[in-house]
């Protein structure tokens, strides 16, 4: 029973990591930008859901939808204002800008909410006790949502015209406009989808762990980055695979080793992948274009 409970813990943690890693990996996959502000957009979504639930007393579905739309628009505007002018600049400049945007978001929220806040529980708290194993409705919802969104995203990227344009841009940004595709529009859509996913993760996370603070996005953003690297950054299925691997490693370390080793092993895993397989499990080794 103990093992089963830990397995359920892995599924829940992995799904939350997965939701954030999906957006991370998608933005990278298409415009080769490691969006370090991603974790902070996740945090903004959690705070928007808090405002909607506390001040407007909205139920779960409208809270989720409004938060997602708001944060997706925010993500798109950030891309327009901060990243677009740097499209021809060295990649390092954009990464530094992303870090700056992240710091801005953290400190902006800090102005209004310097203290941790509690998000009211909007979902029914149903716990099933199956022979000593506790499963909650929230667990099931989070796991289901992560897998469903992965499938939808996979379909969008691989089966639609927009997805085809996205893949084309990731392949060659200069040729694509010659085929009559608006690069700006496609990149905007990429950001809307990517940050929308982070927003869903933020709302679900605040429901699962209830306390939120302006710095909550930093650590979880790093964890999602590791998930994306393990699975193969830019690869959608890889992000989910990486998320479950990371969650399994973290929970198993806590189970069998002193829990102090957890972050040590997590970041060692990142280093090992970066050193020996930087393109991750499902990624393809990059082809040098001469």
């Amino acid at each position, binding site marked *: 029973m*103990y093992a089963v409970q830990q397995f359920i813990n892995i599924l*829940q943690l992995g799904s939350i990591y997965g939701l954030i890693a999906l957006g991370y990996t998608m933005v990278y996959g298409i415009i080769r930008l490691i969006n370090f502000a991603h974790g902070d957009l996740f945090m903004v979504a959690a705070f928007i859901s808090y405002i909607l639930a506390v001040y407007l007393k909205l139920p779960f579905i409208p809270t989720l939808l409004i938060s997602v739309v708001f944060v997706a628009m925010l993500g798109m505007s950030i891309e327009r204002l901060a990243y677009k002018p740097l499209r021809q600049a060295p990649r390092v400049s954009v990464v530094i800008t992303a870090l700056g945007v992240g710091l801005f978001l953290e400190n902006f929220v800090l102005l209004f909410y*310097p203290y941790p806040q509690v998000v009211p529980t909007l979902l029914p708290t149903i716990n099933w006790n199956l022979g000593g194993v506790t499963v909650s409705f929230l667990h099931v919802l989070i796991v289901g949502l992560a897998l469903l969104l992965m499938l939808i995203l996979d379909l969008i990227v691989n089966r639609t015209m927009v997805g085809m344009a996205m893949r084309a841009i990731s392949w060659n940004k200069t040729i694509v406009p010659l085929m009559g595709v608006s690069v700006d529009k496609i990149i905007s859509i990429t950001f809307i989808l990517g940050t929308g996913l982070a927003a869903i993760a933020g709302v679900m996370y605040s429901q699962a762990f209830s306390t939120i603070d302006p710095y909550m996005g930093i*650590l979880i953003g790093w964890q999602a980055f590791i998930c994306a690297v393990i699975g193969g950054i830019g690869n959608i299925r890889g992000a989910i695979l990486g998320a479950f691997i990371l969650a399994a490693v973290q929970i198993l370390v806590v189970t069998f080793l002193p829990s102090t080793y*957890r972050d040590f092993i997590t970041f060692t895993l990142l280093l090992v992948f970066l050193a020996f397989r930087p393109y991750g499990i499902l990624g393809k080794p990059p082809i040098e274009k001469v």
Partner: protein
Amino acid sequence: MKKTVVVLLVTMLTIMSMVLVGCKSSAELTIPIGLNAELTGGLPIVGASCKNAALLAVKEVNDAGGLDVGGKKYQIKLFIEDNAYKSDQSVAVTQKLITQDNVVAIIGPNASAMAIPPSEIAETSKVLMISPWSTNPATTIDSKTGQPKKYVFRACFIDTFQGKLDAKFAMETLGAKRIAVMYDVADDAGVGLSKYFKETVEQMGGNIVAFETYTSGDKDFSGQLTKIKQANPDLIYLPVMYNYVPVQIKQAHALGITAKFLGSDGWASDELIKLGGKDVEGTFHTAHYAPDIATPIAQNFIKAYNTAYSSVPDDVAALTYDSFGMLFESLKTAGKVDRQAVRDALANMAHYEGVTGTLQFKEGSGDPIKSAVILETKNGKFVYYATVQP
């Protein structure tokens, strides 16, 4: 051309320095005191309480015409610095207070992880530092020699005392036999407390069935708590900061854990109840003072604090107020505004009647001898449960 620029620059600097010196001599007599607090970052409530109490203590003295030191009345000038709950920034602001603002003494920081690094600087710079709330023994002990630091004091009891007291309370009063511990490895107070708690429980014949850790910033404790549930404890000791407690107890309850919870003085913030709601009912924790059994001195302070900020002062506020009280007392005894003289006066102080009880410093040590209280969370309030003498 170059020469003219140099001459111009020198003239400007001379005028500026003359103006600055002129300002200083015309101003009234002041005593600069530094405050190093956790205003932003992970523990903003602690920083806010500390700042509020500091401003109150300074205002009371200044409004009464100033502090009488050696027959002259001095106004207190407070330099407030934010360490952002980062140890490197805590060191940087301490250096700034000492070298730039020329403070006579520094009050703060509060969290042990913030207080230990700057305590080394205060010691080497020979500047008095009083930490209101840092309970880790290392704050006042020199890491190289193992001897007590000469310039670092605190207003609170230390973790060796608190850890033992918590262990005794868990076993004797609450009757716990199988005990689990979970703490934050990045929090010096928690690391120390868990160690002393575990030692005492084992000496008393109790059983530590799980000893789990996590790192600052974590929100998911399902792995550790599932392991604790498997060990089937009848009490879980959480020597952690208030902001983690609600999340941990909520997750424990969701996993079906029914054990009792006991915490350290890190719990003493109303935020715990606000964030935890029903889940934190019936828990116990150690504290530095209990507002509901306050002495006349404490009642005056609670009243003044309540008038100024319309809230009941927490542990940090009370301890900060006592730190300032002790500092003012030492300044008066010293009879001059001098770093060394103030330090000597505090070290030789017979005893101090403060908000948090009677404080007394042992020969050569910066750790006061004082009592602790145990509080219970009942109907959305911390209620006095017992007093424990050292």
